[in-house]
């Protein structure tokens, strides 16, 4: 494997224990259309009770460093990706009614989750940064920047990418016909390792920045743009869908994936969809939770080409082809 290639060397995730069913979520008032969500492939969500998003990120990072035996001082760069505005500051919840951020002091604005992680894990050699305003595509943007940095700066050898998001307490978990969960993932990117990133592509459409007032237009824009982004990524990678062994999805509704697969002409069997029902849509971490589970389940063989696609508000469509 070329040392000029960058890959995802190791990957972990963390999900809250609580996994209420659709019926339980409906009883709590955080889901209204349980029947429709069930028909779209959802069964349960993962809901953080006491953990903040930073706690979840820390769980994922601790697991990653322990599992790989990576000394903290090997980390040269940390990129912390958050989809929600509340994910970019320390304090998240419980927030007062009608609020997401819970700031008690002006200086709270400068309490950064990524700095807290650096401190907690003694990442003394690392520089750190936050990636936000990418919606659910935040971790894809972090990976893209990590890869570019590794290719451009020889002294950067190991990049830690982290993503964690949790909804405020009692927030609706039903967003545009999807069931939203809390969760975090962490990964190490290095040169010359497995899960080589063959190509990435992102399209951003700022015209849809006011997502709340353009829901129908966003649904309509999603599918044709997703197809274009996937096709462009495949072209950049120099491969076709026939070469792709698995589609590793973001956990939006199974139904929308079936429609998108129809658009791109991809067999349903290539979609790793088991987690959509049991995990739900963890905002930014989905694809990498799925990549880890598919790997652990022995579904992916060495050399398999994987297509990872996600979509985030903003709007952002992001895709990458990875060689396992």
């Amino acid at each position, binding site marked *: 494997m070329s040392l000029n290639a960058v890959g995802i060397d190791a990957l972990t995730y963390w999900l809250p224990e609580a996994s209420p069913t659709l019926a339980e979520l409906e009883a709590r008032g955080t889901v209204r259309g349980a029947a429709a969500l069930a028909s779209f492939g959802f069964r349960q969500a993962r809901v953080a009770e006491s953990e903040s998003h930073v706690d979840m990120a820390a769980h994922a990072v601790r697991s990653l460093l322990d599992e790989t035996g990576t000394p903290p001082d090997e980390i040269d760069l940390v990129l912390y990706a958050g989809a929600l505005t509340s994910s970019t500051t320390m304090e998240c919840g419980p927030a007062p009614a009608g609020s997401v951020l819970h700031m008690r002091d002006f200086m709270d604005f400068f309490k950064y989750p990524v700095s807290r992680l650096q401190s907690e894990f003694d990442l003394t050699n690392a520089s750190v940064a936050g990636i936000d305003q990418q919606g659910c595509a935040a971790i894809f943007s972090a990976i893209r920047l990590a890869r570019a940095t590794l290719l451009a700066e020889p002294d950067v050898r190991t990049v830690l990418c982290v993503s964690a998001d949790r909804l405020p307490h009692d927030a609706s978990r039903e967003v545009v016909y999807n069931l939203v969960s809390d969760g975090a993932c962490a990964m190490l990117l290095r040169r010359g390792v497995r899960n080589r990133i063959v190509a990435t592509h992102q399209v951003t459409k*700022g015209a849809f920045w006011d997502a709340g007032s353009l829901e129908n237009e966003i649904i309509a824009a999603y*599918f044709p*743009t997703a197809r274009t982004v996937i096709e462009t990524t495949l072209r950049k990678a120099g491969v076709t869908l026939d070469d792709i062994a698995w589609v590793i999805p973001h956990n939006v509704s199974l*139904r929308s994936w079936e*429609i998108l697969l129809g658009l791109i002409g991809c067999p349903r069997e290539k979609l790793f969809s088991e987690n959509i029902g049991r995990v739900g849509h963890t905002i930014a971490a989905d694809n990498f939770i799925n990549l880890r589970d598919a790997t652990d389940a022995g579904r992916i063989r060495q050399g398999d080409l994987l297509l990872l696609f996600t979509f985030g508000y903003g709007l952002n469509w992001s895709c990458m082809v990875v060689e396992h």
Partner: protein
Amino acid sequence: MQRTILITGGTGTLGRALVERFAGGRDATIVVLARGATSAAAGAMPPGVRFLGGDLRAGRTLGIAAADHAALRASVTDIVHCAADTTFNRPLPDARAINVDGTSAILAFGAECPRLERVACFSTVYVAGRSTGCFGEADVGGRDGFVNSYEQSKAEMEVVVRDAMPRLPIALYRLSTIIGDSRSGTVTGFNAVHHALRLLYQGLAPMVPGHASALVDLIPLDFAADASHHLFERAFGPGSTYHLCAGAARSATLGALLDATTAAFERHRPAWRKRSIARPALVNLDTYELFVRTVEEAGNDVLLQATRAVQAFAYQLAYPKMFDARRAEAVLGPAGIEAPRVLDYYDAVVRWCIESNWGAAA
């Protein structure tokens, strides 16, 4: 001999254009039979055209007064039957009321007219329904079923017409989809194509069933009127069926039409580009139906209305076909009447739609 030409549906898109053409002749009295005829509609007619309020759904009385009925019966020499319900997704019984029963009524009336010489009945080339490939002028539609109630009711109408052909001098004119005037782009009758255009403009049409290479046959109103008027007046062929369509050479592919549509939006409304609206994806029918079902299950009213508006028209795109028009072209060609290439006037039609806000400002 003074002719009396009875035109049904004379206030509709094609009917109005034909009234103008027939009214230009010197030897004919024109009588327009229209449902709910108003003084405003009557006033919009050329001078000398007589307006008669009636309703074909009333049966052979045509819903007109007995005295008018008797006088008309005695004088009519020509019937031009344009009245139709062209809504694609009307409940079938409602579509049949005008398109089938109304045709039966006008033909029954015609059978009682001692001076009758010619009858024109208008249908659609889309009686071909779900069949694919080449559909000829002598072919009978509906072998593979229909995409919408309009097609089915028109195919049933043709059965009524063919049954009457041995007794009456009838020519059948099957029209392609009319989208506007080729010279000005003016649209006088909005149909499913224009509704689909508006949804594209609003960014509410994520996908369209069909192949990029499938030909879409569209014609302008002026061609439809000129061609049918010429065939009726100069080369009447009783018992014959004619296709008035663009044909393969002058049609555009679905992909080219979508490109032309977005190009026209950008050209005539530069601000539209800023909205980053994606060109709809072309998909197979299964995928499109899955999307429609999903929108229904989600209970999204806006997208539900949008998909239903596209559905009735767009489903036809999933059954690619061409229309053989050799019989019509053999007559029209020597007269110099041919459909223009759709891409030569399509931009003007889209522009008219945008600038009139789909007729709201007209």
